[in-house]
């Protein structure tokens, strides 16, 4: 195995063009190194992008927030550019592994590994993020929601890499909520997670809602049926109850035949509700929603 540390994005793309699928991208290495040790991966070449400045950091351009793919979870959870209405994204970044893993692991890796349990993917889906994919001499954009093809499989060419993730910054009456259910309070792989993007009017009527789930499908995904049901409704107890039973049916149907179907379809209701309420409190400008 050969390790190459390119000095610029241009060089990375050059090497990726040369080696194609023989080259694996390494940034934090929190997944790849484990796979290599287990013998699940044995790439000819690893391309280290962890110090490529063009791929790191978070910036604001016009109405977009734009995150480099090699930005660590720690950087996301501490970024002052991400305002408090985006708390759900920070919460998700903070819920990844341990401080050591958050210092190494990157959002680009979280997306490209396409794990169903990837923590930052549901909030990025709820934000309707756009991915910037680059190959030598060409650049294209694709919606995150269209990026996942199957468990561990994404729409990424053999000479292509993910360079940036962008989404529209939130307005005052918008909020992003997140809730994750793990087997413990830290260092826990998600068993179930929800992210909710919400825009409401003064009457608490839902103008826009985007809901994304984690760990209850082959990859993190949008819950369109639930979004459709909730759009235009006023948030109150009846709406919530209806939405919850709809969600329970959807999840049970999706996981049918699996041991976890019953537990997950019931727990999903509670997790979704917490994510929705987190988003609602952010829309309303309430500082802190007491999670516990």
């Amino acid at each position: 195995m050969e390790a190459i540390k390119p000095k610029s994005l241009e060089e990375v793309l050059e090497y990726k063009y040369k080696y194609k699928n023989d080259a694996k991208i390494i940034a934090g290495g929190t997944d790849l190194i484990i796979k290599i040790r287990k013998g699940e991966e044995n790439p000819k070449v690893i391309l280290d992008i962890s110090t490529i400045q063009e791929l790191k950091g978070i910036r604001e351009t016009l109405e977009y927030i734009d995150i480099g793919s090699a930005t660590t979870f720690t950087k996301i959870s501490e970024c002052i550019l991400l305002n408090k209405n985006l708390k759900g994204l920070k919460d998700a970044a903070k819920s990844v592994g341990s401080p050591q893993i958050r210092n190494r692991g990157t959002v680009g890796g979280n997306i490209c590994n396409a794990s169903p349990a990837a923590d930052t993917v549901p909030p990025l889906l709820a934000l309707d993020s756009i991915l910037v994919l680059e190959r030598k001499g060409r650049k294209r954009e694709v919606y995150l929601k269209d990026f996942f093809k199957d468990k561990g499989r994404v729409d990424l060419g053999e000479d292509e890499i993910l360079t940036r993730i962008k989404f529209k910054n939130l307005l005052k009456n918008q909020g992003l909520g997140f809730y994750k259910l793990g087997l413990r309070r830290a260092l826990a792989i998600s068993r179930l997670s929800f992210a909710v993007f919400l825009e409401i009017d003064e009457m608490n009527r839902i103008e826009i809602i985007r809901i994304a789930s984690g760990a209850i499908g082959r990859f993190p995904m949008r819950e369109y049926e639930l979004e459709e049901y909730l759009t235009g409704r006023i948030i109150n107890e009846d709406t919530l109850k209806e939405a919850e039973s709809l969600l329970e049916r959807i999840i049970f149907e999706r996981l049918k035949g699996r041991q976890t179907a019953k537990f997950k379809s019931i727990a999903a209701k509670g997790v979704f509700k917490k994510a929705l309420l987190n988003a609602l409190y952010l829309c309303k400008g309430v500082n802190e929603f007491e999670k516990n």
Partner: protein
Amino acid sequence: MKKRGKGIACIFYGTGYGNGFPDVSRAYARLLKDGKVEISVGATEVGQGAKTVMVQIAAETLGLSDKDIVLINEDTSKTPDAGTAAASRQTYNTGNAVKIACENLREKILDEAVKLLGVNTKVGLHIKDGLIHVKSYPSRNVSLKEIAENNKELKAEGIFTAQTTQMDENGQGAPYWPYTFASCAVEVEVDTETGEVKILRAKHVLDVGRAVNPTLVEGQIDGGFAMGVGYALMEDIGLKEGRMTNGSFEKSIIPTSLDIPEIEKVLIEYP
């Protein structure tokens, strides 16, 4: 919805191997030429504090400060057998062996002091801060260093055998001699919508006899509590047809510090 519940439980726990199993700890104490005392003991430090406690016991027995004790432990080529670091036996069993070794060494040191001080008996001699005094005449003294220079071969052994008897064929009897009595109370909150369980608070009361080092005892309570939480709420090796399905720490979950509440601790030191 969140529901709360409280629970309390009491146990007693026998220290040492018990049930008539030979339970012997050995220790050596030796006067070094600089007046410090070397303790050799097989006791293994596994985080319980054996290294600290053995030094404390030796220092107190000999009237020295902990800086004057040199501990050699764990190295089986140099130290006598002190049994396993298991069954909560090291502080009590091996601690007693260290104490006996130090008492034996003390007698030998005092025998030497009698000669050097020109007094007629050990009675009334007192070791403090590395000096041996005549109690009623403190300016009449000799240091441990002088004694070591005079006699390079001062050493002693301590053997402690724990009291233990075998139970009868019906499992009846008194298999242990020392016991620890403990009680624990917790308040727990369950989120009925997500299944999340949170321990809100916990209190532990332990009758430990004499706490040789109270901070270490509290540390053991913290660790023991966390292990209990793991057993009760998380740990599952997931045995399926004889194979573990949760065969790594990625899947076999134990609590982290964030899963453990502040634990209120009470030590009862009796007698």
